[in-house]
């Protein structure tokens, strides 16, 4: 028995609902991961230009 026949006459609706949920979750995961990568890259760029936060400087100056 194939998956669609075991899901009955409304298999297309069931599969479409699960596919939609999977796409939405995939978009959320991609958003979180890509956003983090973008932010870390930008922070690294600005740090390379010699800009550091006060708390970072204080930690570096601490004996």
């Amino acid at each position, binding site marked *: 028995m194939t998956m669609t026949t075991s*899901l009955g006459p*409304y298999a297309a609706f069931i599969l479409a*609902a699960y596919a939609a949920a999977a796409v939405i979750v995939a*978009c*959320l995961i991609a958003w979180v991961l890509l956003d*983090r990568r973008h*932010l870390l890259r930008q922070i690294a760029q*600005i740090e390379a230009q010699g*800009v550091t936060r006060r708390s970072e400087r204080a930690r570096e100056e601490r004996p």
Partner: protein
Amino acid sequence: MTLINLANPSRVLRLSTLSLPWLTAATFLAFAVAGVQAWLAPDDYQQGATVKIMFIHVPAAWLGVFCWVLMSVAALGTLVWRHPVADVAAKAAAPIGAAFTLMCLVTGALWGRPMWGAYWVWDARLTSVLVLFLMYLAVIALWRTIEDPTRAARAVAVFTLVGALNIPIIKFSVDWWNTLHQGASVLRLGGSSIHQSILVPLLAMVVAFTLLFLTLHLAAMRNEILRRRLRTMLMMQAAAT
């Protein structure tokens, strides 16, 4: 660790770095268990196999509502205690809440068509959830419209608390009005009306989706803290030149 210690974004960053791998693993494990249970669950005697849509529709609806409640608690943190992490938590939650509410609406439409003969009806439950989705979009737009994050947080907090009035409307819409949407069947006086063979997989999916939400929210909070650090650094750079 007291709650006030968590007001330090650096501490939240460290906490998220430690806990995210564990939360991610727990989410995968929970989905594996819940997925098998949902797949093996019997068909409903009236709805047939379409009852499987419930295993994603109900958790998505629960998270859409839960996320607004979480944002409302964070709004109190912003307005009453000026808790910096409350702003971060609220901003990080909004897109995730919007996504789960959208998932609820889409899966509900795909469930409604074979069962009711319509993808959409303007009944109180469906309309109030659509309003919730539009409110999430408004919150996201508000965060983007006001440049200063502290001012944006206060405006969003007021909007969130006013919008929280929609939460009881969503919950009790099926009791207060005649709706095509079914009444409460999980959380109700007298216990759940769902048979154990379907209730257990449903609750397992709710746990799995909630873990997914917590993982995504913590990761999004970490990103928001980094975004604020970047903003500070850009301002320092601008001031130095």
